[in-house]
C-alpha cells in the first residue's frame, strides 16, 4: 500500500492527459460508484473498422480512479474495440503498477473499466449485464 500515491498516480490525477468531452462521439457512457460518489464518463470515437481513434474521460473521483481512467484511455487509443472487451482487472492493476488493491480501493480503480465496457457493449448489444463480471 505504501506506493499507492507514487508520482505516476499523483501526476495523472493532477494533470491528466486525456480529460475532456468528445462531441460528437460514437460511444458515451457514464456511471458512478455509489459508495463514494465517484462519477466517470468516457467518450469514444470509433472508425469504420472498429479502431478507437479518439477517447476522453470526464467526471470526478479520487486519485486512483482518475489515474486509472487516464491510463486506461491511453492504453486503448488506436486499438480495435474488440480488444477492449477482453480487458480485465489485472490489466488495470498493471497499468497502475499495483500488485493488488484492497477491496475498497479496487472499486475505484475498476470504475473506469466498468464504464468503458458498458459503453462498448452497449453500442452493439445494449447489454449492461456484462458489467457484473468486473464487480
Amino acid at each position, binding site marked *: *500500500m*505504501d506506493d*499507492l*500515491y507514487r508520482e505516476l498516480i*499523483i501526476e495523472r490525477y*493532477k494533470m491528466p492527459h486525456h480529460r475532456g468531452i468528445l462531441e460528437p462521439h460514437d460511444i458515451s457512457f457514464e456511471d458512478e460508484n455509489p*459508495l*463514494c*460518489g*465517484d*462519477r466517470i464518463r468516457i467518450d469514444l470515437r470509433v472508425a469504420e473498422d472498429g479502431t478507437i481513434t479518439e477517447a476522453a474521460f470526464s467526471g*470526478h*473521483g*479520487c*486519485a*486512483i480512479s*482518475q489515474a486509472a481512467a487516464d491510463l486506461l484511455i491511453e492504453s486503448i487509443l488506436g486499438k480495435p474495440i474488440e480488444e477492449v472487451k477482453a480487458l480485465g482487472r489485472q490489466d488495470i492493476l498493471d497499468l497502475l503498477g499495483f500488485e493488488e488493491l484492497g477491496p475498497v*480501493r479496487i472499486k*475505484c480503480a475498476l470504475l473506469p473499466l466498468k464504464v468503458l465496457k458498458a459503453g462498448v457493449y452497449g453500442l452493439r448489444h445494449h447489454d449492461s449485464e456484462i458489467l457484473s463480471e468486473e464487480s
Partner: protein
Amino acid sequence: MAAETYKIFDITKIRADFPILQREIRAGVKLVYLDSTATAQKPLAVIEAMDRYYRWSNANIHRGVHTLGEEATTLYEAARQRVAKFIHACKAQEIVFTRNTTEAINLVAYSWGRSQLKAGDLIILTEMEHHSNLVPWQILAAEKGLRLEFVPVTGDGYLDLEVYDRLLEQHPRLVAFTHMSNVLGTINPVREMTEKAHRAGALVMVDGAQSVPHLHVDVQALGVDFLAFSAHKMLGPTGIGVLYARETLLEQMPPFLGGGDMIKRVELRTFTPNEIPHKFEAGTPAIAEAVGLEAAIAYLESVGMEAIEAHERGLIAYALERLAEVPGLKVYGPAANHRGGVASFVMEGVHPHDVAQILDREGIAVRAGHHCAMPLHQKLGAVATTRASFYLYNTYEEVDRLIEALHKVRAIFG
C-alpha cells in the same frame, strides 16, 4: 461543570479498558481511531460480558423453564431496564429492542405510520438527515400518498428554525429529525423543536444514533415521542438497537414483524399479539448483544455522560482550532460549542478518499464518503467529505497526529 468533571476523567485508565486501542496498524504505528461516529470501539467489560453470557448462561428467552432459560431471560430483561433508566423512560415496556437505529425508524414508519397516516398527511424531516431517517419515510410516502417537507440547513450548519416554524403551520402529523448530525456534528434543539411540534399537533421522532452515545439524553425532559439509537455506537455490540416510544403509542401501534415471541396466541388463521414491548420483538432476539449493551451502559455511567460530553467538547474545540492551520482545508458545520465531536472536511485539490487513505498509512482511521447523507452533501456542495470523530477514549495527542498527517497529505499532493 466542564472543567470540574474533566479533572476526574483519567484518559490513560479509560484507554487501557479498550484492547483494540493498543493495536499497531503497521509496525511502530499505533492506531488512532477517529471513526467512532461510524462505530465505537468496545471496552473489555462489554467483550467479557458477552463472552461470559455464552460460556455460562446461553439459552433462548421467554421459553424454557430451565435454569439457563431463566438466567438468559433475566439478563435480557435487565438490559431493557438498564436502557430505560439510561434514557429516563417511564417504564421498561417503552423500550423495544431492534437490530439498530435504522430498524427502529422503520418500525415507526411501518407500524405507526402505516396505521395512523393517510393520503395528504405531512411529515417534516430535515436536510441533515442520515439516509435511515429519509428512505423509510420516502417509501411510506410513496405507498400512502404522504407529503414530505424538509427543514433546510443553513450555510453554517444549523437547522433553519424560521422555516421550521412556517412548516409547522401546515399541521404535520410527524416531525422526524436527528438529535446530532453525523456529518456536521450539529446538536439540534430537540426540546424546543419538540414543544413546537406538539403545539402544532404533531408527534416527534428523534434519531438519537449520535446523541445517545455522547450526551446525557432524557426522553422525558426532551418530551420526544419516539427515540431511536444503536448499541454499537455507544461502546456496545453490533446487531442490537433501541426504539423508545411512549407507552400509549406502543399500545395503539400494530405489530411490526410477525413470528414467535410477538404473539400471545396463534390459530391457523388468526393471532393475538403479545403485550408491549414483546409485540414488536418477533423471533429470537439478540440476547448476547442485549447483555453487551447493558455492560456498555454500565461502563458509560461509571465514567459519567457529563464527563464524556465535556471531554469531547474540549477535543472538538481543539481539533477545529488545529484543523484551521492546515492550508486549503475547509471544515463544515457549526462552532465548537454547538456541536458534538465530529469534524467533516475537504482538502482543496485532494479527494476525500485519498485523504483517508494517506491518513490510514499513518495509523489514523477516519471515514471518507457521503456518510449516508447524500442530500446534505449536495446542499454543502461537496461530493464527499473526510470525517474525523471523537469519543471518550480519544486524546489531544491524537488530534496532533491527525494534523501532522494532514500536512503530509498536503505535501504529497502539492
